[in-house]
């Protein structure tokens, strides 16, 4: 984990995300699609997504205490933040990940800026 973080700093990565899915279930597919789109739109190139299939790697479910699928974990920036579900609500996901949409400062501004994101 430490190694990843050091590496990330070097490459100027801001967001390290990990998505745990179960095989190729419809929900998993939905989550992967939602996450990709969300990152493209809001995190530019400063992100990296790792997709972990716990059906193939059950030990990862144990090691990272995964119960529900799909589960999104923000590894970077620390500390770990977790979102479960198909990530249908982009705004909620961004809020949970602590992503500030451009031109906005602070959590209060995010509330006002939601309409702005919609336009973009």
């Amino acid at each position: 984990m430490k190694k990843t973080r050091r590496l990330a700093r070097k490459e100027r990565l801001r967001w390290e995300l990990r998505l745990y899915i179960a095989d190729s279930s419809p929900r998993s597919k939905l989550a992967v699609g939602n996450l990709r789109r969300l990152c493209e739109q809001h995190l530019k190139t400063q992100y990296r997504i790792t997709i972990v299939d716990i059906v193939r790697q059950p030990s990862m479910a144990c090691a990272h205490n995964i119960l529900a699928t799909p589960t999104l974990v923000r590894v970077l920036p620390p500390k770990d933040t977790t979102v479960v579900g198909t990530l249908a609500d982009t705004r909620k996901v961004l809020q949970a990940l602590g992503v500030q949409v451009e031109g906005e400062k602070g959590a209060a501004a995010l509330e006002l800026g939601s309409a702005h994101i919609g336009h973009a």
Partner: protein
Amino acid sequence: MARPQRKAAEKRGIAKCRTGITGLDQIMEGGLPKGRPTLLCGGAGCGKTILAMEFLVRGAREFNEAGVFMAFEETGKELGENVASMGFDLPSLISHKKLFVDHVRVERSEIEETGEYDLEGLFIRLEAAIRRVGAKRVVLDTIESLFSSFSNTNILRAELRRLFQWLKSKGVTVVITAETGDGKLTRQGIEEYVADCVILLDHRVEEQNSIRHLRVVKYRGTTHGTSEYPFLIGVSGISVLPLSSLKLDHEASTQRISSGIPQLDAMLGGKGFYRGTSILITGAAGTGKSSMAAHFVQAACQRGERALYMASEQSRSEVIRNMRSIGIDLEPWVEQGLLQFYANRPGSFGLEKHLVTIHDLATAFNPRVVVIDPVTNFLAVGNDLEVKSMVTRLIDVFKSRHTTAMFTSLTAGDSTAESSEVGVSSLMDAWLLLRNLESNGERNRGLYVLKARGMAHSNQIREFLLTDRGVRLVDAYIGPSGLLTGSARIAQDIREQAQAAARKQQLARKNLELKQKRQTLESQIAKMRADFEMEENSVLRDVEDLELAEKDATLVRTAMGRSRQAELARSHGNGRA
């Protein structure tokens, strides 16, 4: 009529998975439903986790069935520490692949939810864990914590239903723990999904004593005990205590064991008590109950048998010191490990706890002989009914183990002498009564055998002496004014002794007289013989003299004749000559 039917039902009935927990399998008539989930519910701190863990540990140790423990509340390390005091070595079981503990951290409010999800992660972890050790038993403790982590209860309920179905398909026996709340069995109502078997644990305080109870609320497809059974968490795990006297199937022994007092054995058909029976000794304070118990214990140790002495009035060293004064030294037996003391004030904890402690000791130490001195002290922690039910259970515990148990019971005074304080005399096989016998301004001890099932026993009252060489029973005298005890008996003793001495003297005198007579007679005979000999001698001498005289006379006559003839010849002519 009912019995064969029930037997058939048991045969056809569902398969059971033995828990190995003392008493529980008996109540559940074999164990938990095999391959099905069982809901174990109860308030906080009533022993759910421990019971669930014991189910796995005993499964691994006694039935060679591996288990998986999914802990939602405690970490594996914490669990290990919590049950280590009961002799459950989790790290060892884990390293031997007999147990797998998966700690599921449930973090409240740290999880955002958006869109649909399932609990596939939990399924996968369970599946991996089951496969890892080849588990036959699974515990989910406490799965309801998931409700604090995930807010979409609809999804959770659906997933739990799916989980239980899935577990059934796996063929594993599952124990699911849940907390009771709001008058319901479980907070989230998961009993709806786990409908096969529900066990309710309860922990309440009565008269400052905490008592745990277990009740099988529901057990589909089988009969089961329905009462509330007390249970305790002891040094070797959980013990549920059914009132098993309903099943009177103890094997009766014909072997006899000594009471340690030869005269008492003589009163009991000459051989003592039957092995594996229960003996009650009642008596007022200071009548020597403990001394009898000490004799009994000593006799057992001398036979090389293990004995357990439960003292609730005296400490171990006090018992040893006090018994030394009557010449019974118990210390060497303690050192040899044949004798174990368990000294505890009854008030220190509840009846059930005592019961379980005694039960645990009986199992761990396996004594052949047990003394409970006195059983009446338990009245301090329970009412008559409770104490009676406890004593009944104790008797069952001992009888089923073929342990001979001696209970002493303190009676308030001689007025109630023939009723034991806790009303347990009817349960006992032998009943000895020690009584104070008052007469001539002194107090003496008397012993009666009130009852001794299955043997001819003496109906005599014996006086009971505490000497520096132990208890001694002496025959009591029945005098003109009743029973003679104490100094009256001693006076009688002395009188008898004097009479005996007098008789002895008389006899000696007679013997002497006879001897003297014989001597006199013999000396007379000797004298007469001597006289006779003297007479005989003189007569013989006379005869000799006479014979000599006769001879002389003949000689003289011959000589005279010869001379006369010669003269004649000379005078009448010499012609003839």
